[in-house]
């Protein structure tokens, strides 16, 4: 290069420097625009999981708060005590016969009839759990009333209080679970599809010919995925906190943010791995689904993990989503502190490093 050339180059860069965006910024912007303008991607990352939240949230909406119904025939101190206990909802029925019919028909799980000192409890045996609850509850109220009738102070006193705040309400486990699923979808699909697309449309080869470090390209795309995850989190929690769904966040909810970001990183690494092997968008989508869906089911994204067999629970420890889910529900709704996210965070970092390393080994700039 001649001196004149050099001077021209300097002048050219001098002139344009004030407006030149950093490669990292410009690549992030390009990837983000590509995402926002892709209606299908927007739908599947934002609206689709939100639809699940809305549907499941409404479906199970009053599931936790719905009280046990109990037919009540006649009146007396036991029925009054039951009423006051707030544990059951009493439905007045005119006669014992009629109540018996309703229990038989399955309209009521049980009924209590009080005539004088005579308390009669009849229950449907079809649902054993419910029957047990009803019998225990009524027995407790009856013996309470008995003690009180003797006029003596009770010898043993029971102090019962709930520990987990509203833990029974489905929205409380649905929100962290579905959010983890939503984030995993957008990060895995985003990474895999971008990689396959950029390889197919030669952008990757073109970038290889530009003086930009691979870490800058990777970092820009990861940043976009992290941004999308935060957006998803905000939208999700925002919707779940609407009065219809009634999510209540615990005090240290913000601890979920670092977890969410770490989870996104590990899912992104999974996506890079998928994208390295997949030759077409279709193959990438299929492979990503094959990984994300079973992972979501086993990690308790749609229902509490303790409902699946033990060996599956053990297996689910192999998925980053299980740990993300656990950590997020601990700080988001179970009122736990920073201790609860340390282990999940460490595990998620481990996943990211290991999967990311493998993905970088099998990375290809172009097909064949």
């Amino acid at each position, binding site marked *: 290069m001649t001196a004149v050339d050099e001077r021209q180059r300097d002048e050219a860069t001098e002139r344009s420097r004030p407006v030149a965006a950093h490669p990292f910024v*410009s690549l992030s912007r390009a990837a983000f625009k590509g995402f926002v303008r892709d209606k299908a991607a927007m739908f599947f990352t934002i609206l689709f999981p939100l639809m699940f939240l809305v549907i499941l949230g409404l479906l199970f909406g009053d599931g936790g708060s719905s009280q046990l119904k109990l037919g009540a025939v006649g009146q007396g101190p036991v029925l009054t005590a039951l009423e006051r206990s707030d544990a059951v909802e009493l439905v007045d029925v005119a006669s014992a016969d009629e109540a018996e019919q309703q229990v038989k028909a399955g309209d009521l799980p049980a009924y209590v009839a009080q005539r004088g000192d005579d308390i009669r409890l009849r229950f449907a045996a079809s649902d054993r759990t419910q029957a047990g609850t009803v019998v225990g509850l009524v027995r407790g109220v009856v013996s309470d009333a008995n003690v009180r009738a003797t006029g003596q102070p009770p010898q043993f006193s029971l102090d019962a209080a709930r520990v987990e705040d509203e833990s029974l309400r489905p929205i409380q486990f649905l929100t962290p679970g579905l959010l983890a699923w939503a984030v995993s979808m957008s990060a895995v699909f985003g990474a895999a599809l971008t990689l396959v697309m950029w390889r197919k449309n030669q952008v990757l*080869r073109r970038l*290889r010919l530009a003086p930009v470090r691979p870490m800058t390209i990777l970092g820009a795309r990861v940043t976009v995925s992290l941004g999308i995850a935060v957006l998803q989190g905000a939208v999700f929690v925002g919707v779940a906190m609407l009065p219809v769904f009634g999510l209540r966040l615990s005090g240290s909810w913000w601890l979920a943010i670092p977890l969410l970001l770490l989870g996104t990183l590990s899912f992104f690494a999974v996506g890079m791995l998928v994208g390295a092997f997949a030759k077409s968008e279709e193959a990438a989508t299929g492979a990503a689904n094959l990984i994300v869906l079973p992972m979501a089911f086993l990690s308790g994204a749609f229902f509490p993990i303790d409902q699946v067999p033990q060996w599956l629970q053990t297996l689910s420890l192999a998925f980053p989503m299980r740990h993300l889910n656990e950590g997020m529900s601990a700080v988001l709704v179970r009122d736990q502190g920073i201790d609860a996210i340390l282990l999940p965070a460490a595990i998620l970092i481990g996943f990211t490093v290991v999967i990311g390393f493998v993905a970088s080994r099998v990375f290809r700039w172009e097909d064949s």
Partner: protein
Amino acid sequence: MGPTGDAALDVDDIHMSYGDVKAVAGVSFSVRQGEFFGILGPNGAGKTTTLEIAEGLREPDAGSVRLLGTSPWPRNVAVLPRIGVQLQASAFFEKLSAREQLETFGALYGVGGDRATEMLDLVGLRDKADTRENQLSGGQRQRLSIACALVHDPDIVFLDEPTAGLDPQSRRNLWDVLAEIKGRGKTIVYTTHYLDEAEALCDRVAIMDHGQILALDTPAALVRDLDSATHVVLERDGFAVAEARALPGVDDVVEDEASLTIATRTPAPVLAALAERGALSGLQVRTATLEDVFLELTGREYRA
């Protein structure tokens, strides 16, 4: 600069196979700084592969490349800002507009947004600045792709069939663009299937087939070396075939309904003799072109 003086690109006996297919089988050439170098050849001749090895996109099985004094393989970030590449298949970021493509690629080289507007003007895409990449026509994509290759004003430009699919206007305008770049001392290496274009633009051309260079010289020298006859075409009436054959230096005479064609390797005395006889009305002289050289060298068979 390297030991090769002012060579911008030095390709030395490169070989490259894809499985059983021998795409490049021993190609050597050298491109001077400021030179406009064309690579011609039928489909599958190995032009793209040769360019990609020269750019540092592929590693040759054997042989070596010096690009601007260094080796482009493995990925050499020092040399990348000085080279501009237009790949045979356009490479664009999905869903971005023409201007955004230029801004994004420009930013990778530290080039500001005003340059994007300049480039859009340069390739006549000002009206399409806000059109998404997938809504551009084939020729518009091609022009945008060229603009993306030139956005950082590189010292050496590799263009793989830049004029393929362009309308005549765009093609001529691109010629002007390329001539202007060359005028500023930049080096251009390009492939094309338009032989008239190569003849008009290139300082030197290499004609490739089956992974090898068959001929390499200035277009004029290649045509001269072909040693093919000049054809003088006359209006038919007023001149007999026998009379034409008797002229000095005539190799052959062919006639059809409208005209008489004289083939000669020494056109000057033939034309003088014709002038003497006052037979110059409607006379046309057709000399050999690069296309004749190309067909002579590569034959008329279809390529896979």
